[in-house]
Each structure stands twice: as C-alpha cells, then as structure tokens.
C-alpha cells in the first residue's frame, strides 16, 4: 500500500497501577491508520479501547502507563517526544473528540472564543481566527454561525455541542482525529448527523479518523477497517467488509448476533452471550474470551492464541484457536424462540391511559411569572397482560415523564390513568397500596436504582415485609425464588450492589419489582446502560418473565431495535404526543409518520432509505 501512514502503533502495552500493584490492561495492540481512512475500535467496558486512544495523545490518566511498544504519529515517536511538543501537536495535527461535550467545553467562554483560542494558540493571527471560527461552525453544520458564535455552550443541544467540539478538534486541519464514543450520549437521529459529518470531514479534509465505540453497527456504517478488542487484547482486526461478512473470532460474531437489529424478525429471541466482560483484575488465563465462548476447546483454557492473519486476499487477523477455518455459520435459533404463537392472544387490559397531560410547573418568584411547561400532551395508551407495549422516542419527548406518571411518582395535570380499574388520583389508602403492588418500575440505571447500603437480600426482603407478603419463615425461601427467577445464583444474596456487575444489578432491580407480584411493569430504558453483550440477556429475561408470569409491559426506549425484539405493539412519541401507534410488525414494515420513518432510517441494519441521500452528498450546511 502506498498511502501515507498517519498513525502507527506497534505492540502497545499499558499497565494500570492499583493498590495491589501494576496490572496489565492492554497488551500487544498493533495497528496503523493511513491518511483518509477510518479505523473503528470496538469493545465493551474494560476492553482497554479508551486507554489505547488516550495513550496516542499521551493523555493517559495518572494511574496508567505505557510499558511497552511504540506509537509513531506522522513518523515521529510520540513516546520519546518532550511534553511541550506533544502539547503543540494536540489541537493542531491531532484532534480529539470525547463522549460528553459539555464536560469538555468551558461553560464561561462562548463557543466562538473557544474555537478562536485553539486557532490562535497554534499560531493564527487574531483577525483571521475570527473569520475561520465562523467558517468552522458552518462547516460542522451549526445554523446561523455568525450569531451562534457568541453563545455559550449550555445554549446548544447535545448534538450541536458535539458539533462544536468537532469544530474545535478539526480547526487546525488535523492529520488525525481521535473520536471516543462521540455519539453514545446522543439520540439516534442526531447520531446519524454526527456520523455523516465525520465521514464528510474525512473526505473533505483528508484526515484519518480513529473512532472508538461499543457499537458494531456504527463501524459497519462509516469505517474502512476495524479492530475488535476484548479484555485488553485485540481479538480481531481487518477491513470492515471482511470482518462483518466473515468474522473469524467468536466474540465478534456473537457480539454482532446479539445486537438487536432492524433486519431481524420481530419478537425473535436474541442469541445472548453468556456471562459478562471480565474485570481488569480477574482476567481468565488462556484465551480471555473462553469462559463465554461457544467454541471453547481445552487449548483455549491454557494457551493464549496469537493474532494471526487468516485473510484470503486482504489482511484479516484473528486471535482464536478455532479460527483456522471460517467459523461455522450461525447456530440455528434456539428452540422455543418462536413466540409468535401467542401474538394472537389479546390479553386482559391492565392499563388504560386516556388523554393524559403532564406538565412541570415553576412557581412565581419575585420577577418571574409562574409558568407551566407541558411535557406530555394528550397521550392515550392501553396495555394488556402478557403483552408488551413499546414506547419509543428521543430524549426530551416526555416518555420518561409518562412512565413516572403511570407508576404514580408524578400526577397528571389532566386525563385519566387507570390500572386494573384503579386510579391514582382518587385512590384511598388501601387502594393506593393495591396500586403499588399492581404496577412496578424497572429503572434505566441499575447503579442508581439500588440502595448502596443494602445487601441484595435486604433489597428483596423489604417489599415482602412492608406489604406483609410472606410470613417470617417463608420470606427467605421467597427471596431465593425471586433471585433464581431472574437467573442469578443464591450466593449473590449477601453482596452489596457495588459488588455486582451492571447486568446483575439490573436483574436485582427486576427481581425487586417482581417481589410484590405486579401485573404491569413499566421499564424505562431497561438496557441502555448495559454492555452490548449483556443487553440481549436482559431483553430475553424480560421476554421470558412476561410469558411465564403473564405480565403486561410498557417498555420505554430510544432505540427501535430493542423494542422490536420485545414488544407486540409500538407507540412512537414525539414532543409529548404519540405520533404513531400500532402492532410492531406494521410499524416496522409500513411506518406512516415521517418521524417514525426517520427513526427507522437512523437505526442500525435499517432497510429504509435515509430521507437524505448518501453520506458524501453534502447537506444543506456547506452552501
């Protein structure tokens, strides 16, 4: 290959110093990025992908150090370079974009000032920088840049802030842009825009891009090559075409299979990867994926496989003993996966939401008129036992507010919510207790929804005690039932939440909700805070519980593909209103509302044409 290599990393090893001593976190990472190419680095938490990226700009946290290997950026050795020179590179030839733009933008400086600062610091005269700042805002698609440059970061939306951060990163025409999860905090349609912007900048400015993500479908969409990391090791590496079409490592394949996608049948049981990604301190011997791998052989437990080229014509590396031959085609779907049999059943109605309005009120203060901000405007819904209703919308559309209103944490300003014939608003004390037992909430963030001071046993016992659901003697056996119902071993009962992984915590949260034997469960983004390989497990668990216990679900998600696997009906919500509502298959096969269509188009694996043409056809902003 003759392209100029911008970044060349060889055999990189990183170590993390913990109380117990140095622990290797990343080892043997080798890759290079030619100019104008996009490399995707994929991995879950603890894979070391972010540390790898940070080490390129010599921005590792203090606890981490490079212990082996080399990093050459434009032919220069980054590890030998004096600090001052590295600092001069950052923001000039090396641009960086992070996940949370608000944390990286200075709240006391206007965005214009922040862009000018990076230009002036790298040697541009002030008056020129002024003009260039406006150009850059325009380049990244901020409307009305002349005016917006004098605004402060908090006045921009999440997506726009990310664009501003990209403008700062590319201000000095960098040779390489490092983007660490640049879209993970954003809505799907916004994510789409940012990705397109990055791809466009790549072709316009000819820069190389390293995109770090946990999402295989992003890689599929815009990357040229991909590197899959697991527990500090590269497990597979090659061109996107090769890796996606013919993954050689079981982890890559399982990861792709367990991701909910639009091009799979609805209500299909997701093939889940068992277990969870290992901690830095407890990585298994041999191949690090072997405890979770369907193809484990004896050898995998003891010997660590090297990264070997298995490509036919283009390089395609995989670190797997079983990868000598192409992997067997996906295993047939597990029996019992077709739940379509019962989609015909209607179930008994359990939740009836009629024309509900919810608004947040601000009290009058000295110089402020009292005002009311409507969040949910006239929503009507029904949910049935044994069936799942998906409620989909982007952040700020009011879906979480609606969820909290249904479970009685908020009260509607008008409209009627009746659950099993009872209403929060006119409930006697006794009826409220019954309502509490009828409907339960499963939260998005399993880290915040469990009391950190209680053991799992205490968490699960308390609802039984408060509602008098089991006699003293029967309580412990009931707690044991609950925890095994959600697929956790009884041995976890005496742990504190911080001793559990994200997926385990979410299971405890579900068990806690089941403790009061509810008929309806409202799940607010139940999987969006979890690792990709764990999401499928939780989705399957929710589906199993629904069928077993004849539960009704309201599943809230920003992501259509999650809802597709779990729900019988879907309601699409936008700006406080339901814009489309129907059976899942209809919504996905024949969406009526343009907003539904744009959500669908922005989802991974979408068969829908994007409303706007291809990536390189520059959108409205460059004119």
């Amino acid at each position: 290959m003759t392209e100029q290599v911008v970044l060349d990393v060889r055999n990189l090893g990183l170590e993390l110093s913990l109380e117990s001593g140095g622990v290797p976190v990343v080892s043997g990472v080798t890759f290079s990025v030619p100019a104008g190419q996009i490399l995707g680095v994929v991995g879950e938490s603890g894979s070391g992908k972010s540390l790898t990226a940070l080490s390129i700009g010599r921005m590792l946290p203090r606890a981490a150090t490079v212990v082996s290997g080399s990093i050459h950026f434009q032919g220069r050795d980054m590890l030998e370079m004096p600090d001052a020179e590295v600092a001069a590179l950052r923001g000039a030839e090396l641009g960086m974009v992070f996940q949370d733009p608000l944390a990286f933008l200075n709240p006391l400086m206007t965005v214009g000032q922040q862009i000018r600062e990076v230009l002036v610091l790298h040697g541009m005269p002030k008056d020129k920088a002024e003009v260039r700042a406006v150009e850059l805002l325009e380049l990244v698609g901020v409307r009305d840049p002349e005016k917006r440059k004098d605004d402060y970061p908090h006045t921009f939306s999440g997506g726009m802030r990310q664009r501003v951060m990209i403008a700062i990163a590319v201000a000095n025409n960098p040779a390489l842009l490092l983007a660490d999860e640049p879209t993970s905090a954003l809505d799907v349609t916004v994510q789409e825009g940012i990705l397109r912007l990055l791809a466009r900048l790549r072709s316009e400015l000819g820069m190389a891009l390293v995109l770090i993500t946990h999402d295989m479908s992003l890689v599929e969409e815009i990357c040229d090559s991909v590197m899959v990391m697991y527990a500090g090791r590269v497990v597979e590496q090659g061109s996107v075409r090769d890796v996606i079409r013919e993954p050689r490592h079981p982890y890559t394949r399982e990861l792709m299979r367990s991701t909910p996608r639009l091009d799979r049948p609805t209500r299909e049981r997701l093939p889940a990867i068992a277990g969870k990604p290992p901690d830095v301190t407890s990585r298994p011997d041999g191949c690090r994926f072997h405890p979770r791998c369907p193809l484990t052989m004896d050898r995998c437990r003891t010997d660590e496989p090297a990264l070997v080229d298995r490509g036919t014509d283009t390089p395609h590396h995989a670190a797997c003993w079983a990868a000598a031959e192409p992997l067997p085609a996906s295993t047939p779907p597990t029996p019992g996966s077709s739940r379509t049999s019962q989609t015909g059943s209607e179930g008994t109605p359990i939740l009836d939401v009629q024309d509900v309005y919810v608004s947040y009120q601000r009290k009058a203060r000295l110089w402020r008129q009292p005002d009311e901000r409507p969040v949910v405007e006239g929503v009507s819904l029904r949910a049935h036992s044994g069936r799942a209703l998906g409620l989909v919308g982007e952040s700020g559309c009011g879906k979480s507010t609606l969820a909290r209103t249904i479970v009685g944490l908020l009260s509607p300003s008008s409209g009627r919510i009746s659950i099993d014939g009872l209403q929060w608003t006119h409930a006697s004390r006794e009826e409220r207790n019954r309502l509490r037992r009828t409907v339960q909430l499963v939260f998005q963030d399993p880290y915040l929804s469990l009391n950190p001071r209680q053991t799992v046993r205490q968490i699960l016992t308390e609802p039984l005690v408060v509602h008098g659901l089991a006699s003293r003697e029967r309580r412990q056996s009931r707690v044991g039932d609950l925890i095994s119902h959600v697929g956790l071993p009884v041995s976890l009962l005496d742990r504190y939440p911080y001793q559990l992984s994200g997926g385990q915590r979410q299971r405890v949260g579900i068990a806690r909700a089941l403790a009061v034997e509810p008929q309806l469960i409202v799940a607010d983004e139940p999987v969006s805070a979890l690792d990709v390989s764990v999401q499928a497990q939780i989705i399957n668990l929710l589906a199993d519980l629904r069928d077993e216990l004849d539960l009704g679900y309201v599943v809230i998600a920003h992501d259509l593909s999650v809802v597709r696997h779990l729900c019988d009906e879907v309601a699409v919500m936008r700006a406080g209103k339901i814009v489309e509502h129907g059976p899942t298959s209809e919504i996905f096969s024949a969406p009526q509302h343009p907003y539904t269509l744009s959500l669908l188009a922005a989802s991974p694996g979408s068969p829908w044409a994007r409303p706007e043409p291809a990536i390189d056809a520059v959108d409205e902003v460059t004119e």
Partner: protein
Amino acid sequence: MSTTAFTGAESVDGGGQAPVVPRSRGRYWRAVRSPRGAIGLALVAFVILVSVIGPFLLSYGPFEQGPNSLQQPGSDHLMGTDEVGRDLLARVLAGTRVDLIITLVAVPVAAVIGTLLGLVAVVSRVADAVVQRMFDVLIGVPAVILGIGVAIAIAPGMESVMIAIALVTMPIFGRQARGALLGQLSLDYVAAAEVLGYPRRRIMMRHILPNIVDVIFVRFAVEMAHAIMIEGGLSVVGLGIQSPQPSLGSMIKDGSSYLFETPLYALAPIFVVLLLVVGYFMVSDALNQAVLRT
C-alpha cells in the same frame, strides 16, 4: 473497586456513571488505616489519654496553690507554676479535660439536632423555610457575639460555652444534611422505594439517612476542631470557663501576660490545641478520602 480509572473514560458502555460510591462495612476501617487517619487518630487519642491518666501521676492538683508563683520548670513543678503558684502541668491537663468534655457534649448534640432539622426539608416546605431562615440568622452572627449573648442570658461557665458551641455548629450540620438529603432524593433508589409503596418515614430513616451519615461524620470531625477554637475565642473575651476552673482558652489568655517570664504557661495549652485541631482535621480528611470519594 479496581477499575475506577476506567469509569470516567468508558462510562456509557460501562453502565453509566456511578456517582454512588461503593460502600462497604470496612470504609471507616480503611480511613483509620490510611496514614493520615492513623496519625490524626493517634494525636487525638494521645491528648485524651494523657489528660485522663496524667493527674494520677502528678503530686499536685490543678487548684492547689503553692508558695512560689511563676516558678520556672524544675523537678518539683515539671512545667513551673502560674501567678498564684498552681502547678501548670496539672492545670493544662485539667483544662484539656474541660475542653474535651465541652466539645464531646456540645458537638454531638448539635450534630443530631442539626441533622434532624436539616431533614425537615422533605417534610414540609414551610417548616423547611422556617428552619433555613433560623440557620441563616445563626450563621450570620459571629460565634463570639453569640457566646456573649448566651453568657449574658445565663451565667458564663461550662453550660454557656456548650450552648454557644452547639448554636454555632448546629446550622452547619443542618445545611450539610439538607444538601446531602436533597442530592439523594433525586436518585432512583428513592423513587424505587416510593414505587414499592414503602412508607415515607421508612424511606427517610432506612434508606436515605444511612446514605448521608458519612457526610455528617466527616463534618463532625471538622466541627470538633472548630469547637475547640470557639472555646478559645470565648475565653479570650472573658466569657468562657470562669476561674478557678482552667480551660485551654483561658490558660492561653492568662498565660499570654507572662509570655516572657514563663513561656510554657501560654505555649503548652497552645500546643495541645494545635495537636487536637491538627488531629481532628487529619481524621476528617482521611474519612473524606475513604468514605466519600474512594
């Protein structure tokens, strides 16, 4: 938690940021074992031990007057005598005991009352507003002025100093508790408890309170040091512990008149105050590290 270095960088796929700090039963033990915590605790323990055991080893009581005033340190009086011939060492130890008793009564009382008043914030808006304005007033008045007020209202002495210290530190605990409480209220585990139909008082006492005691403990150590200094301040204006009862503050005040004749008269109590204040601050710092940040 061993992967803390990761959580910042990989928060989304790592399961969301976790502002809820891992808490184990051993967290106080960890504070004690850290160098800072161990030294701080040792300093405080040393002062307490010496002030309790010391008197049994001395041949003079703190109130016994001898023939020689302002005597230099010697084999008879290890630190010399004061202006009426009392043994200085015995008086420093007695003064230390007085200070310890005052602070160990006043500060815990203030902590409990202050915390409970802070928790009123969730009970009712009106009660919260009343309590907060009361705190504003207490915080607004300087400690010494407050002490003067109390001393005038009831006779100056141990009780008035205790009340003054309690009044000064109570709103600090109240504010701290209220802030921590409001922070916890927005967390999902509280919403979960509500959805599960737990009674409000149970949520408050069983769920929220245990999650804010750490903050109160850290503050407690700081306020112990603060209280020692308040006692000193009140003594300097003559409204602290009244003669002949010694206290660290009153000895510093009396001794400062004889700084050149018998420097230990003032310096010894100053040194004890220093040991206690530094000790308490180190303990609070270690607690803060081990318990709140991790």
